[in-house]
């Protein structure tokens, strides 16, 4: 028998690590399976986890939800599942709920989490409606409204018919969706039908963000005083398709790299990550994403030139 029986820590905890021990309650097996492996653990199950253990889905909020929305959803779920109310069987659920809440409420953790699930979040678009992103009234629906501003002639018909849904961008002289489902369904239908150039489209919810991003006019590089100005994709739907393809490609690339780096981390380092390091890493991942953006833009420009 060895004399020294003390042990020391080798791996710093992260919020992504989960229990490896057997849960006290046999009914909890379902949750345990869902969370046996963390993002750090670079296992094949990662892919499955992404779809199953999604914090956004757990809380029933959208990926671009604000802290206030997350808080409300969290409280609502707590009132249903907290062990004080649901009894001991709520224990495992509440554990995951608390974890999800903690991650999504802290900007740095949320960014890291978003990156880990391959989610792109335009958090800056939420609070500044001028940037052209629409907000949602009520729950998410599979379909969303989108105005192809290239086609819009600025007739104001839609704004007139559904004033809570559409708005007029006076600077650009075209209409835009302000709030998804801001009016009742009949009003929206009437306004869509009333468009003389049929530039109001029903699109998939998932496509909406990219479309709204791409339709925003971007400053154009000029030479001297010539060629300067603003531009946007001529066919925004085509551009969006290409954007998504690129995004997917980048995501896969990123994930592969991520896995490699995690493997190296966990096998070579015994040091814990300091908050400063964590922050640096978080900001680095943001920068990476930003670079990705500019890459996309140059690509979009390329696309337009041809």
């Amino acid at each position, binding site marked *: 028998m060895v*004399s020294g029986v*003390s042990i020391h*820590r080798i791996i710093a*905890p992260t919020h992504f690590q989960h*229990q490896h021990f057997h849960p006290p309650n046999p009914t909890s097996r379902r949750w345990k399976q869902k969370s046996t492996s963390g993002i750090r653990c670079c296992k094949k199950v990662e892919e499955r986890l992404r779809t199953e253990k999604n914090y956004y889905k757990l809380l029933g909020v959208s990926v671009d939800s604000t802290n206030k929305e997350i808080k409300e959803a969290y409280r609502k779920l707590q009132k249903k599942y907290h062990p004080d109310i649901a009894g001991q069987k709520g224990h495992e659920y509440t554990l995951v709920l608390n974890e999800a809440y903690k991650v999504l409420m802290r900007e740095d953790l949320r960014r890291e989490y978003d990156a880990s699930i391959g989610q792109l979040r335009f958090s800056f678009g939420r609070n500044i409606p001028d940037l052209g992103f629409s907000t949602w009234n009520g729950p998410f629906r599979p379909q969303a409204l989108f105005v192809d501003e290239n086609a819009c002639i600025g007739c104001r018909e839609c704004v007139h018919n559904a004033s809570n849904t559409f708005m007029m961008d006076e600077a650009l002289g075209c209409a835009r969706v302000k709030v998804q489902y801001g009016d009742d369904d009949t009003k929206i239908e009437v306004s869509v039908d009333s468009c003389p150039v049929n530039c109001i489209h029903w699109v998939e919810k998932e496509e909406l963000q990219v479309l709204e991003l791409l339709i925003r006019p971007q400053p154009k590089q000029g030479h001297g005083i010539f060629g300067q100005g603003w531009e946007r994709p001529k066919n925004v739907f085509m551009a969006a398709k290409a954007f998504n393809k690129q995004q997917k490609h980048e995501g896969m690339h990123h994930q592969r790299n991520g896995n490699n780096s995690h493997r190296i981390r966990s096998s070579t380092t015994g040091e814990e990550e300091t908050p400063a390091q964590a922050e640096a890493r978080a900001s680095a991942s943001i920068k990476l994403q930003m670079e990705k953006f500019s890459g996309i833009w140059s690509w979009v420009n390329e696309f337009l030139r041809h």
Partner: protein
Amino acid sequence: MEEQAYTVASDSDTPGGEKSSSTFPETAIGIDIGTSHCSMAVWNGSQVELLRNTRNQKLMRSYVTFKDDIPSGGVTNQLSQEYEILSGAAIFNIVRLIGRVDTDPIVHASKTLPFLVQTLDIGVRPFIAALVNNTWRSTTPEEVLAIYLVELRTMAEIQLKRVVRNVVLTIPVAFSRFQLTRVERACAMAGLHVLRLMPEPTAVALLYAQQQQQNVHDNMGSGSEKIALIFNMGAGYCDVAITATAGGVSQIKAVSGSTIGGEDMLQNLMHHLLPNMDSLFSSHGVNEIKSMGLLRVSIQDAIHKLSSETSVQVDVDLGNGSKISRVVQREEFEEVNKNVFEKCEILIQQCLKDAKVEAEDVDDAILVGGCSNIPRIRNLVMGTCKKERIYTEMNPWEAAVVGAALEGAIASGVSDPFGTLDLLTIQVTPLSVGIRADGNTFVPIINRNTTMPSRKDLIFTTVHDNQTEALIVVYEGDEQLVEKNHLLGYFKITGIPPAPKGVPEINVGMDIDTSNVLRVFAGVLVPGTQNPVTPFMEVRMPTVEDGHGWCAEALLRKYGSSLDLIMVQKKMQQ
């Protein structure tokens, strides 16, 4: 009326098993056991009602007298005069003494109490005794609390005309888990089943959540989030909590607490007016006890008066030739207790910091507890929270017990058609829990102010080649010195496959459920997988019995250098 005799059950075991395994048929009763006073309340179907004793008191003194053969507590006992509880026959300040060892400074400070508190400074339970027929009769804090709880229980059963078994007790934030087990044991001895032990300010937070919910219903306003700071200071303890409330959910952001209270102010002023007090009363003779009691009563009176007056005349004849006759100014009182007030301010600042809340963001500053009338405390709370006034919708004496009764009704599964009980409190852990590792470092696994329920785990490894066993020593606290934290227990994991040091992966996990039960899991993993080599160990903490200093020392003696008491530098990031 049929009189049921309740005797104290054997001091054998704490009630085990799941605490909230099913819905409870009876509504649990809320009890606020304070250092000086105690109260009891229950949800009566439409609102919370405070129970009164036969003398129509809602607030009962917390003490037990051992005058005759049958001990009697402050619930039923009619005091002929205040001095009676100071005759040496009564044990009080139980909440300050329970679950503490004789090396604890709080226990040493309690030696100025009229009954006998003896310490041997070896880290075991102090010797406590009451003077019965000129004999020191020994007892324990748990026994005293149990006797008191039996009286409370009998009183409630007579009034409610039903058996009372389930209770929600409020406790100070500063209580260690070991102290909590002592409270649970006292309840078990009194035949009570503890549904929840609720930190006092969080009970107040629940009441606040109910009031806010009520306001929303009345005004049809929007249920926007409100942040409240709750400052609770009684005779024995001072607690702070910050809660974010919306839609009847009280989400505790952070708590902080310390063993300071009115008792400390009383002792400071006693020492100030009678500097040689300790040597004067050290022998604990009958005459000394009497003068000690006289001094205590008159100074207590003086402090109460200083809340409304700026100066007070203290006249006390201690009987042994020494007399105190002088005027005490409020400023003097505040100067003498400067350190107490400073500590209060630190607690508030710390709580704000832990909750990541700015003083400007606090919507309401709530002040409750026996010390809430002290002008300096009021100013201090208003000043630190940058508020013009204190929240006025609460009775400072009753807030905690009403909150406990609300929690009792919720945890019992009572629902109210009017939505008055549509409430929830989301608690946090008041202290970090972790293990000793990295030499003698306290490594927290679950940090303090983590939302409950919580589960975290860390991977550890061996420090010796071919090490086959490892000792898991579990501590609670936030001190860097491992020895300054509370030892909760220890166990050994065996069957580590022989390997060079640093290779085996030992997983230590902790799980705290909403009843604040702590389970520690540990085991060896096959490297690179999630599979355990041998079955995992699951240990419910705390496992240490009375005292703990010598447990750690015994481990040190047995296992040598690996238990050196060296400071901790690194703390886990949140």
